[in-house]
């Protein structure tokens, strides 16, 4: 939802207060991340948590992300819409957010890994790049 596109006249007041005193999803999720880090350290295994699979109360997703914070790496991908890959202030804990080209979030994952797979260049793409570059070089040689 891009706020710039919605014309808002005056302040919008919501009657529903955001309160997660009883739903308590933040702490258990952080514990799960802690266990995933342990797993990464001891077994080198990657864990991925799909934030969309947990019924979060309004505001809880923001609280989780604020708690995790931002670290040293912020990567932006331009692949069929924006994607953001951020390392949180806890090294090894990454937040991968996929947007469609109308800036709606279509999925969000917490990945506990050394580097999320989507950041790596893919084999097929590399092979296609090799063919493409070869072609470009041939062409430029021919015109010379």
């Amino acid at each position, binding site marked *: 939802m891009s706020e710039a596109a919605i014309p808002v006249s005056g302040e919008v007041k919501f009657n529903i207060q955001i309160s997660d005193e009883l739903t308590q999803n933040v702490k258990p999720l952080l514990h799960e991340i802690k266990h995933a880090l342990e797993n990464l350290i001891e077994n080198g295994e990657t864990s991925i948590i799909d934030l969309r699979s947990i019924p979060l109360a309004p505001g809880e997703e923001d609280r989780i992300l604020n708690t995790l914070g931002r670290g040293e790496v912020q990567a932006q991908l331009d692949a069929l819409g924006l994607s953001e890959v951020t390392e949180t202030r806890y090294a090894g804990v990454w937040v991968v957010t996929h947007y469609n080209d109308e800036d709606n979030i279509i999925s969000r994952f917490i990945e506990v890994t050394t580097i999320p797979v989507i950041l790596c*260049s893919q084999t097929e793409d590399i092979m296609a790049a090799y063919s493409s570059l070869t072609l470009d070089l041939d062409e430029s040689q021919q015109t010379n």
Partner: protein
Amino acid sequence: MTDRKNNKDKLPAGLDQHEGIHSESGPFEKTLGETLRSQGISRRSFLKFCAATASMMAMSPAMIPKIAHALESARRPSVIWLSFQECTGCTESLTRAHASTIESLIFDSISLDYHHTLQAAAGHAAEEAREAAMEENFGKYLLVVDGSIPLGNPGYSTIAGISNYDMLMETAKGAAAIIAVGTCATYGGIPHADPNPTGAVSVGDIIKDKPIINVPGCPPIPVVITGVLTHFLTFGTIPELDHIGRPKVFYGQSIHDRCYRRPFYDKGLFAETFDDEGARKGWCLYKLGCKGPTTYNACATTKWNNGTSFPIESGHPCLGCSEPDFWDGGGFYKSISMPTENITKTAIYTAAGAAAAGVALGAMNRSKKNSAAAAHSKTTIDDLEK
């Protein structure tokens, strides 16, 4: 709709199918992977799509590589979409999912050969395209149906002069599987509600010899519709269904069991009316008639508009729209533990009648007792010696 046309490389709907027929190598279908690469979509973008799809299909992220592999080598099935007695809400819901490039990949992975609202062709050309697609892919195409079928009088709903019933029977013959989208197609929906003037029935009431996947909801959540399509593409099979034909992956949990307001229910904190203090604090809507406990759907986890919200989160009790006969389910604002009829009146009348009956019976008993006492004859020594 213009996006749709552009994505199809400017070929009118249905003709790319014909293109395949005339090529030298015979009917040739590109795999999805080849199609995407030829459109210049990188594998990284494809991986992003698979991740979004896995999330959409409520699958563990560990399944992403498997989905990627399956989709890459999947062939594009032909899909025929028939719309019967419906409000077009299901198509509207679906096209919200289709609003952008990443989700439109689902549509690039199928060949939507016939769809009233989305197709460019009209009139005879459209019907011919449908018949050609059916003939060409006999036994292999996917049939998607929304809207109920009126059995009362075939004239209630026709397309190109063909009644819904006839069109369904004819098109179902060569279908590999049928997906009934929306509560109308799956259980009859609003046309089927009391008194059902058109004699509306569901797809499952008519077709008995083909596998049917029911995707109910009024409308269904967009990603649920595309998720079912994607499952079919990825695995080539029908997802596991519950006892009324709904995919368990989306309809296996009741709203009540996944609702974030459940802790309020357990603690006994309810909203009593709309916009009262409890409602503003986001308390449970059970007392306002929420059908969450008896409804199975993915609203509480998958939510609507890309996970923005769902009715309960916005303060309105669940209507139970993915259940059969939800329109006649006793009122949207009547809690499910309440009787649907006026029991108070019944109780008062019964009590009054019973009191009268009780007095009458009591009087009868009294008179019986009195006459027995009066008729009581004393036993004499003579009686004993008899």
